[in-house]
């Protein structure tokens, strides 16, 4: 079975549409969404409604920090993110907020953990940006494989036989076997705001028959998404980030 793992959609309708169309075209049977449905982008309502629709059809959805931020009054984010969140609050209705309020911080399925940021403190939102953090996260869970997002830059970490943790920058489109003899932590790249200098949307494709993971890149209509960000009056840097993939 093919499982699509999507994260950091950030209210980017064009990117999510392209990813879902791609996933459907290759026969994806299950969807897992790792959070950050809103913030930064111009289509929070459509995005949340789309996620609600996916969950109604069996998808697993996790809470992200931007989603959580919509519901709380605290401000822990940088200024640009905060402006986007405050704008997003004005956009969502009660049903959409209620959906966000019921999202779990993490979900374990078999030997696999799905979480937005990390396993050691899922609601602390610490980033897995290197082998040290990857190791900390792997040590905090008994699950063999962890999938997370939050970083917006794809990387696959694995524990070595001698207990070290190493990282690998995945090659898009190449299936990588997640050998059952070791533990893995996959940071899935962002659907809606890639930051690895590749503007194309990214999602993870897990094939549980071969136990392999592919990082898929889906080119989408970046210009329209960026134009909507500008039209909504959101900070211009958010549009530039989409255009530059950073």
């Amino acid at each position, binding site marked *: 079975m093919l499982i699509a793992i999507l994260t950091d959609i950030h209210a980017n309708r064009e990117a999510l549409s392209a990813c879902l169309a791609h996933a459907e075209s290759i026969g994806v049977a299950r969807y897992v969404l790792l959070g950050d449905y809103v913030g930064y982008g111009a289509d929070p309502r459509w995005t949340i409604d789309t996620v609600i629709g996916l969950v109604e059809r069996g998808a697993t959805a996790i809470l992200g920090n931007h989603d959580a931020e919509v519901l709380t009054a605290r401000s822990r984010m940088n200024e640009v993110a905060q402006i986007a969140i405050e704008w997003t609050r004005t956009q969502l209705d009660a049903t959409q907020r209620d959906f966000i309020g019921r999202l779990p911080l993490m979900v374990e399925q078999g030997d696999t953990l799905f979480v937005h940021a990390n396993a050691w403190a899922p609601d602390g939102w610490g980033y897995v940006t290197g082998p040290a953090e990857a190791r900390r996260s792997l040590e905090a869970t008994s699950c063999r494989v962890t999938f997370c997002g939050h970083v917006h830059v794809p990387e696959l970490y*694995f524990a070595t036989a001698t207990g070290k943790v190493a990282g690998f920058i995945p090659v898009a489109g190449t299936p990588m076997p997640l*050998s059952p003899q*070791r533990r893995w932590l996959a940071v899935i790249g962002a659907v809606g705001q890639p930051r690895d200098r590749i503007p194309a949307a990214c999602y993870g494709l897990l094939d549980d028959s071969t136990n392999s993971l592919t990082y898929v890149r889906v080119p*989408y209509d970046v210009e329209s998404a960026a134009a909507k960000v500008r039209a909504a009056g959101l900070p211009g840097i958010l549009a530039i980030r989409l255009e530059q993939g950073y």
Partner: protein
Amino acid sequence: MPRRRPEAGQVIGGFRLEELVHEGGMAHLWRVSRAEADGPLLMKIPMLRPGEDPAAIVGFEVEQMILPRLSGVHVPRFVAAGDFDQPYIVMEHIAGPSLKARLNELPLRFDEVADIGARIATALHDIHRQHVIHLDLKPSNIMLRDSGKAVLIDFGLARHDELPDLLAEEFNGPIGTGAYISPEQLHGIRSDPRSDLFALGVLLYFFATDERPFGDPGAAREWRRRLYRDPVPPRRRRPDCPPWLQEAILRCLEVEANDRYATAGQLAFDLQHPEQIALTERATRSRRDGTLAVAARWYRARGAAAAARQSCAIQLARAPIIMAAIDLSAGMEQLAEALRVTVRRILQTEQGARLACVNVMKLSRIALDEFEDAEGRNRHLQRLAELKHWAHPLEIPTNGITYHVLESVDPAGALIDYARNNNVDHIVMAARGSSTLRRYLGSTSSEVVANAPCTVTVVRTGQGASH
């Protein structure tokens, strides 16, 4: 956890163990069979004992990961692998001994050295094209098929360009075999296919002279000597060694990978056409470098780390317009990649070039207006996005590249018109394989070639190794 020692007659993963053919320190090799007749098969079972060298365990995992990705005559055909209860790999059983069996016949005739070298280089080129570097090339890991084709075995230390390197972070010291390991592997670099050419150079030297160029050092700290001490020239050991062979061998053994052959394919070509080998000072060298040169290299080697990639040359004033005609339809990904490789090559020699990326949306004659509606506009935008995605790896600054989606009922005509109207100097486009039908009907590329106002490069994908 100690496992039951496998025995003849036992069935693992549907394969019946017939005969133990090799009992190595790290793995046992069994001849196996199964109901479906698919030729002689070999099962590799790792001996995973607690406290064992982790290389044995990780190496098995690496081979399990890489072997299924390889195909063609130059590797054993992958059949099956098992993970949980009993790890194993089943592959084609290549008959006969490895090249190690030839060691008591050394030195070989020079023409035979070149012949074997060309076969091995051809096999290396094949796996390099499949993104794999062997990194432990030596006689015991090379076999010859009845056809004479070389087969590379044991991918336990290998590296796949596009897969995580499970070995890189595992060990502090270099990973390889003392007599054959390349200088860059001593620095922990496991990403240069020319490392395999160094090992092949060691093998050719050994087969031609009956001496290993750097001996057979046991301790890893002795391996570093090759970073500064050059080998005794083969002609010193065998004065009748032809200069071309010494040239080829010593070029493989250069400390700097940039000084070796660029590809195994080039080496194979040279060894098959000795008369065309360009001879340098290496060809007639009669003694090793003097103390001063060695001392200088020793000093450099002390602090040497990874060599920096060569930077791009200074942009030339000339600024041709290169037009890449890109077919984005499904099934054309390989051609699109080949096209990008060719375009990159052209752009490297034409430093001031501008690149126009062009795609034609073919309109049907009966629905000329279909692109005026919203769906048509979306398809147009999607094509533009895909063109940008195609060109993104070329890393061309935005002032050097443009994107164009043309709409026409006649793709070849549209491309030719575009080239003519925009002073294009050079069209680069891909062509699908030829077939009788295509020859009869004609293809877009042949029409462009026939009618374009400028140079046209037609890109095809290379043919894979044939069985």
